[in-house]
């Protein structure tokens, strides 16, 4: 549980620190006069979709941190752990996910610079690379079960399938949002409207890349 606690503590500290800055030295019972122009209580950077994504990422962090904690506790608790071999394909998959992240970053930049063609090209490329990743993961499963590494035979296998499936599911959710964005872009929606979606997709992809590196690292290390 240590990992989970550390991550949650980080989330909590950020959150509490921000609350503290908002509330320290405030005397809530003092009313303001109506004459002064009241300041906006929310900084401009934080738009609702951005904050929504951040909160959602905190939830996903919690899901993966707990799964990884469970992984490590289960590994320590008994002697039946036999590590899964790592098929070389995993490295290729990782590379395609890294590329997807980079490409989406380029697409985001294109969106901020108003370059519609470039945006469309790189956005689609990012999605395709991700689909390659998910299909690659599927092939890895096939390889493993062909090699006799079934889910029920060992907890290491079970965790491998569970974690990769959980991660792939999150990517598929992201691909749904990506598909909608692409459709809107091709349908001729205004750049300004699409930009927010591209940005959210990109951030989400970066996040899932970090998660994948953590999961992959864990599997390599144990």
């Amino acid at each position, binding site marked *: 549980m240590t990992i989970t606690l550390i991550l949650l503590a980080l989330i909590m500290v950020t959150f509490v620190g921000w609350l503290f800055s908002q509330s320290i030295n405030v*005397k809530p019972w003092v009313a303001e006069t109506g004459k002064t122009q009241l300041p906006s209580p929310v900084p401009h950077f934080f738009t609702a979709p951005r904050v929504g994504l951040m909160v959602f990422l905190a939830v996903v962090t919690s899901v993966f941190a707990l799964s990884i904690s469970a992984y490590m506790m289960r590994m320590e608790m008994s002697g039946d752990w036999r590590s899964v071999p790592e098929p070389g394909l995993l490295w290729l998959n990782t590379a395609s996910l890294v590329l997807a992240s980079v490409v989406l970053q380029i697409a985001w930049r294109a969106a901020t610079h108003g370059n519609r063609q470039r945006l469309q090209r790189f956005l689609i490329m990012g999605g395709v690379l991700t689909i390659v990743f998910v299909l690659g993961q599927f092939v890895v499963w096939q390889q493993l079960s062909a090699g006799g590494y079934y889910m029920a035979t060992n907890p290491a296998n079970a965790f491998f399938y569970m974690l990769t499936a959980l991660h792939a599911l999150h990517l598929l959710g992201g691909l749904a949002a990506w598909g909608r964005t692409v459709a809107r872009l091709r349908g001729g929606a205004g750049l300004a409207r699409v930009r927010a979606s591209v940005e959210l997709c990109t951030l989400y992809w970066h996040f899932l890349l970090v998660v994948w590196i953590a999961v992959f690292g864990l599997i390599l290390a144990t």
Partner: protein
Amino acid sequence: MAMAIVLIVLALGSVAFYFFSPWNLTPLASNWGAIDGTIDITFWVTGAVFVAINLFMAVAILRYRYKQHKRAHYQPENKKLEAWLTALTTIGIAALLAPGLFVWGAFVTVPEDAHEVEVIGQQWHWSYRFPGEDGEFGAVRMGLVGNGNFFGVDPEDSRGQDDVLVQSPRVLLPIDRPVKVTLRSRDVLHNFKVPQFRAKMDAIPGQASYFWFTPTKLGEFEAVCAELCGVAHFAMRGRVDVVEQAAFDDWLAEQPTFGDLAAREPGDTEAGAELYVRCVACHGPQGGGQQATNAPRLAGLDAGYLTRQLHNFRDGVRGTHDGDRFGQQMRAFAMSLQGEGDIRDIAAYIETLPIEPARSTITGDAQRGERLYRTCANCHGAQGQGMPAFNAPRLAGMNDWYLVRQLHHFRDGIRGRHPQDIYGSQMVDMAQILVDDSALRDVVAYISSLSEAPTVTGGDQGSEEG
């Protein structure tokens, strides 16, 4: 107004309830007086806070109840007061926590001179293991359970050969000697709890947990299961008899070791056949049972159950109640058997007899019985085939008139109330769900319809039954 009075009455009444209610901690029978001490401290501190807060609230409600031309006082906060209250609370909490942690330190530290016993939980039965002369337990694995190895002791492990195995739910412990209780489970979670000892802990399959205590009072104590373990959780009972050291030593010496049990010869069916001659008159040549002589079918019962019942009859655990006339007859016959070997032989022989379903003599609503049987199926099997692992005999194909009579006996406490008849007492608890005679007949009518069930033999049962 009413609210204030109610608050005062409830607060004081709650405290009075503590002093005057008939329910309180059971009399302590172990060294854990310190646990009772922490409970007392907590009662005093929380009681005082409870009364103080509620009286304050009652006074506030009375004094500051709504008046039309009055205004409430305006005071957003009072830092000094809040700091004081925080500090006082912290001190109070520390006063509760410190003794608790101190006693916990003792609780987790087993004394050097403690002797050991292992308590094994299974659905819905307790058994025990002592480490034997070498003072060490042999390794156990659930995968090894079977073929008479009830505990799953590893036969390769030399430490396990002298382990003393107590398969009955009754165990003896010597007085005034600290004992480390190691807990294991064969299936699901259990919790070995004797309220008078205060200490308790869960038993978890796949790992061992522990606690320790020193029994300080002679006597018989009932152990219950305190962690939900399935349908018969409420009927999972054990017994701890605290005795003098000498009595304990004698008792322990009588119990078989793992080595004894492994070396024990299986029952001799030929000798059993000769012994069975005396049963023929009532139970019939093939053990088919005869209603005319009120003797039930024996064929189809597993050796474990037969051995246990013969012991029960012989030791006066069964067949001594005035309401059980036929049981009294049986007791006379059982006492004519010459001991351990005879009982094993005869049981082994009866197991070889062929099963033919008995004719049904009872009418009842089998459909209603099917729903009632749901509870029975947990131990006796969905087909009534009997499950030796649960100490539950076969029901399918047995004489229905006999089942009805025994269910009556269980329900009315004629059978199963003897303190040493632990499984019988489970049946007493279970038979209570048969609220009337028609329910009883219905469930037996359903059991009669199950007569095609497959046979089951001895399984992993030894023959040391309580």
